[in-house]
């Protein structure tokens, strides 16, 4: 009796490819110690690219497997491709950073791959068990990645905070799942949905508490207020490429899970949940922006601003229409690319020092004009100026909100994005308007920037501009992938 056939594995092909790549990298690192770190990085990238090709092949296949537990619908393929792209970008940004900081572990790349695999399982599964396992694969890998600079107290501390709070929130998630299981008798989303659509099912306190606990745990993963407290500490303590990866891919994965589990599955049309999300969205935007304003470290500012961006996405979550959900997808993609880019600039050393405070950015226009320009592009996109992906993303969200009559929410969102200009602009001012002095004894690097990183950053900036000028391709993809959810 065959429980599982090879056709069941089809939607898992990208995941399997990546796992293979992870083992190859691990074994390469183990048994060919002479191999250069570049080899490992290139192998990792090759793995990501092959998986990406596989994803694209799966598009329109509608493959499902394991009794419908794993699906390769438009939604999961779009998000999985995003993780892969961010993965590639992260590798490109890591190579020089690892060398600069003496992080000589081949495991770094392995963990990066497994984190992506975890996200992919999270996104493509319809069963809470598999989603939970995917979430944990991602989380455990990222705990280690955050703490991989094990001699650096900040890195250790960030890892500890991430681990303890992450595990804490996992407890809430599991408790929520167990209560939902008790209320509906299933852990498969389609069956849960059916059970909850019965009249009166949502009056069952077990179900309500279960859903609320799941919301809390997911709120932690996407870092919305008041579950955001870990974000700035972890993001600023982690190695910068890892920060970029977390802020982009892990957050996108969180929102994918949010949409999959809460918005298309469990019926949350009731005013109750709308009010809850409304409050969370407003708080998240405001707290994120206000705190970002207070920072002197650019990295920490970007960490808080990622909280604010989660708030904008929450606005779309409040609205909850298909148009709003597709704007969630668009904004996640746009933010992932621009956020990675912005953090990516901070991985490159300037006068022998990895930039951190605003002051460190002075003089970029003269000594690193290319990086200064790229950083400005990312900042303008984060502000949401036209011709960038950030503008289209915000426009989509607020337009969806307006169509449903959420005028006040839109106004608060606009005010917040006006507030964000203060601190993003400060970066540009430092890059262009301030003269950096060369510290005594600092060696001027001959090459402007490491080639791998520059490739990645230029690519990211191009995507940001492309999304601003020709957003229609992604918009259509997002809209069609949302339609597969219903």
């Amino acid at each position, binding site marked *: 009796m065959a429980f599982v056939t090879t056709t069941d594995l089809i939607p898992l092909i990208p995941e399997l490819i990546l796992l293979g790549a992870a083992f190859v990298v691990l074994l390469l690192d183990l048994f060919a110690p002479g191999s250069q770190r570049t080899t490992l990085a290139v192998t990792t990238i090759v793995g990501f690219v092959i998986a990406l090709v596989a994803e694209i092949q799966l598009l329109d296949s509608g493959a499902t497997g394991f009794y419908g537990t794993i699906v390769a619908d438009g939604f999961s393929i779009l998000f999985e491709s995003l993780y892969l792209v961010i993965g590639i970008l992260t590798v490109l940004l890591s190579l020089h950073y690892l060398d600069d900081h003496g992080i000589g572990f081949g495991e770094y790349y392995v963990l990066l791959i497994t984190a992506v695999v975890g996200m992919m399982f999270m996104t493509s599964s319809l069963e809470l068990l598999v989603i939970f396992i995917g979430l944990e694969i991602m989380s455990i890998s990222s705990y280690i990645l955050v703490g991989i600079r094990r001699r650096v107290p900040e890195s250790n501390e960030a890892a500890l*905070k991430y681990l*303890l*709070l992450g595990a*804490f*929130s996992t407890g809430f998630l599991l408790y929520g799942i167990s209560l939902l299981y008790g209320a509906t008798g299933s852990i498969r989303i389609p069956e849960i949905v059916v059970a909850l659509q019965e009249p009166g099912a949502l009056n069952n*306190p077990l179900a*309500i*508490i279960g859903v*609320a*606990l799941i919301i*809390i745990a997911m709120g932690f993963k996407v870092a919305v*207020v*008041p*579950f955001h*407290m870990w974000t*700035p*500490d972890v993001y600023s303590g982690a190695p910068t490429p890892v920060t970029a990866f977390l802020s982009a891919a892990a957050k996108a994965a969180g929102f994918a899970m949010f949409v999959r589990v809460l918005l298309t599955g469990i019926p949350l049309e009731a005013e*109750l949940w709308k*009010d*809850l999300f409304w409050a969370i969205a407003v708080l998240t935007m405001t*707290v994120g922006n*206000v*705190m970002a*304003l*207070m920072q002197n470290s650019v990295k920490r500012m970007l960490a808080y601003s990622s909280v604010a961006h989660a708030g904008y996405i929450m606005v779309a979550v409040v609205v909850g229409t298909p*148009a709003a959900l*597709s*704007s969630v997808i668009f904004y996640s993609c746009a933010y992932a690319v621009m956020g990675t880019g912005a953090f990516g600039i901070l991985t490159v050393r300037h006068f022998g020092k990895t930039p951190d405070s605003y002051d460190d950015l002075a003089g970029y*226009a003269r000594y690193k004009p290319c990086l200064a320009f790229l950083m400005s592009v990312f900042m*303008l996109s984060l502000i949401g*100026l*036209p*011709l960038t992906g950030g503008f*289209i993303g915000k*426009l*989509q969200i*607020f*337009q*969806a909100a*307006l*169509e449903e009559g959420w*005028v006040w929410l*839109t106004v608060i969102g*606009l*005010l917040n994005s*006006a*507030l964000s*200009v*203060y601190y993003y*602009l400060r970066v540009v*001012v430092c890059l*262009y*308007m*301030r*003269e950096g002095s060369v510290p005594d004894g600092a060696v001027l690097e001959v090459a402007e920037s490491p080639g791998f990183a520059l490739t990645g950053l230029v690519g990211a900036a191009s995507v940001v501009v492309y999304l601003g000028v*020709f*957003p*229609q391709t992604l*918009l259509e993809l997002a*809209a069609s992938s949302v339609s597969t959810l219903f």
Partner: protein
Amino acid sequence: MSQIWLVPAFPLLGFLLNGFFGKFFGKRFVTIIAPAAVGFAFLQSLVLFFEMRAADGHRLVETLYTWMATGSFQVDVAFQVDQLSGLYLLIITGVGFLIHVYSIGYMGAEAGYYRYFAFLNLFIFFMLVLVLGDSFLLMFVGWEGVGLCSYLLIGYYFEKHSAAEACKKAFLFNRVGDFGVLSAVMLIFVTFGTLNFNIVNAEAATQLESGGILVTVITLFLFLGATGKSAQIPLYVWLPDAMEGPTPVSALIHAATMVTAGLYMVARLSHLFVLAPFTMNMIAVIGAATALLAASIALTQTDIKRVLAYSTVSQLGYMFLALGVGAFTAGIFHVMTHAFFKALLFLGSGSVIHAMHHEQDMLRMGALRKKLPVTYLTMLMGTLAIAGIPFFSGFFSKDEILWKAFSSPLGGGGFWLIAFVTAGMTSFYMFRLIYLTFHGESRVDSHTAEHLHESPAVMTVPLVILAVLSVFGGFFGVPHVLNFLPNGMELYFKGFFAQVPETTPGSAAAEIGLMVASVLLAVIAWSLAHRYYSTSLDAVTALRNRLQTTYRLSLNKWYVDELYNAVIVQPGKLFSTFVLWKLIDQNIIDRLVLLPGNVARGVGSGLRLAQNGVLQSYALIFSLGAMLILGFVLL
């Protein structure tokens, strides 16, 4: 087909080539590419202009691709050339081309030559997108883009602290205006379900109740945006500071093109604005007040560029006054003539500054007319035009505005009087500028004097061309009452703008009378300037002593810090008439703009306490949040 897209494509290509390769290919490459890009755009604009004149309904529309479409909402990247954008196209590319050519000479010695031209090309691109876009969204792209470029160009000399400050100020002030535009766009989208200009204009009268609250709010928000971009009260103070940028930039962005974007928007939506009489009145009042205030400040400034900057603010106020009284054609006509003569004056002052090795204080100039004959003559033409001396271009456009301010049902004698006084002041400070700079005895220090020389041809030829335009540009719109040529402007814009409810046209005699009065005033002001400034400054000193208070008031930009301090220190003076002026104090406005940031900082320092780095307090807040949510959903 018409190929509208080519117009912005040329400058964009110029930007890309200069920005990415300019550094490697060197100066000669940049020198050719940058002006050529704008030159080609101008040629294509000319072609389009005549095509548009020949086309049905005087409108060409070209849809490039669907920018974004979700559900019922669709925005195309579509360009349109109609009467309004056609005229703007010619101004932007034409004047822009001349300024590019001029910049070759002016910026020749600067480091970062390629960077300057790249930004300048980019600016032209965004400005073209602004006027060509057929929807709010595309206009907004241009709107933000020109703001960004102006920001980059003001900060061009970023080594100077004041330049860095000025560009920050410009950007922040513009963001306040942008917030207004965005809010208005939001409301328009909710009301009309579309963002296309033509649909909004066509349906405005049916969808919105005339004089209703909604239309008033929408138009007021739009006007707030316009005051930011076009430097009107209360958001005008960034423009004089923006003079920190290179002079050709001031000529292009802060005189001829970008600052008229606010006017463009109001004119573009004339059908919407006429539905809101309150807003129209507001525009007229703000315009008149700005015109008067800025002109009075310009009277005593000694920095040549600042005089011109305040003059620009004042002239923009004039144009808003025209729009506010419903004289859209007259307003846009003045945009055109102003673009000619103000660009000319700025470039001329640039030529002077260039010769003087970046000295901008007019008290250190004098008697330059022999050394800089071309600059002198061309600037004189510009001055005659702006002062409203008959048959120069400014005369026609300014008189049209004066007359409309008087005779329009939305206007009145008060508006006319303010505009009239302003016209006199304008004549005075402009001739003062000419006399201080070019006449009298030389106050140039000896070292600079040795090197004084006329600017190269690459700078003087654009001056001459602009001078010709300034002299003859007015004949496009000769008022009816003079009747020796048909009023080209009115024929051109026939049926384009919304009509204000017509009243009895004023009598020809009254029009002639007012015209004669304003010309007389201009001449009187001229002679006053001649008397005080043409030879030595002794007479001025005497006069200044007599009018100490007034003079100082104006010199200090109407009291700035002093009054502010006095009000704080001596509350007894609170009731003085100056209380009103307090509102326009630069400091206060500055603070208002920075207010949200400061409030946010205050809130932030409270929130910061929670982020104390201790893991358990994070867990505590997490749990409290969880309990709140659970309580909320259960109860």
